[in-house]
């Protein structure tokens, strides 16, 4: 299971959102991209049709910002 890993000297419970940040970082910013646009819906607002790189970048930024402010997405 993907989770925070233990190692000597690591403080517990300090980085509670890190795993979720890394999850969003990987799924929305990395991984194989094939031809054609990816269309995803964000926070139930609108369907977002953007060229691939712009979409991924802005969504990741938005999600990280939300997480950074402690606001979980739905």
């Amino acid at each position, binding site marked *: 299971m993907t989770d925070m890993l233990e*190692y000597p*000297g*690591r403080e517990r419970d300090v*980085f509670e959102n890190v795993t979720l940040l890394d999850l969003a970082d990987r799924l929305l910013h*990395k991984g*194989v991209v094939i031809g054609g646009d*990816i269309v*995803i819906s964000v926070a139930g607002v609108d369907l977002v049709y953007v060229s691939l790189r712009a979409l991924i970048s802005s969504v990741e930024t938005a999600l990280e910002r939300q997480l950074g402010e402690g606001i979980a997405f*739905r």
Partner: protein
Amino acid sequence: MIYLYAAVDDPFRALRALGEPATGRYLVVQTGDLSFVGSYTDRPAPEASRSALADHSRCVQQLVDACAVVPFRFGTVIEGAGDLARRLGPRHTDIARLLPVFRGRVELALRARSGGGRQEAPKAASSGTAYLRALLTERSMAPELSQLHGVLTASAVAARADSDGGQIKAAYLVDRAGVEGFCDLVGRTAACLDGVSNVSVTGPWAPYSFVDETSQLSTSHGQ
């Protein structure tokens, strides 16, 4: 429509790992010599909700525990095998090369901060060149983070790092059997470096950060 999770080297093990055929949720799409795991969907635009991301991650995690996996980006939806073959293009060859490289390996993610004082890039500079030089200085990795990354890179099959000077966000491809040792190394190394703080390691992940490095990676560590 089919929502794609990953390319896999062993579709039968992959489907078994996902509980098939009992659930009837997942399927394999074959194009050429490659197999891809997906699930039927009626949503051309998946919602990037917390639960959807977790669901995607859980599926890929189950796959990576069972076989070699090249993960897809969240939200990849295809019409069918023909559409996939058309959209893969040259990536077909890349994926075929990556699958054996990723076998038995996982990605670990590192985040760390430098406590040292960093000079901020000036809001105004005498010229564009001066501004860019100052920006470069600001974004260059702090020496202690660079040291940490250097030690970890030497123990990994491959590494990638982003830094804005005071913090590092890195990914390391490591042999699955070496995960525990790598985490120990992070702890020991960070403890020896003054100014390194807020160190976190997450994983093991599927190798999301290394899907574009076909030419740099080989099946043997250090080659």
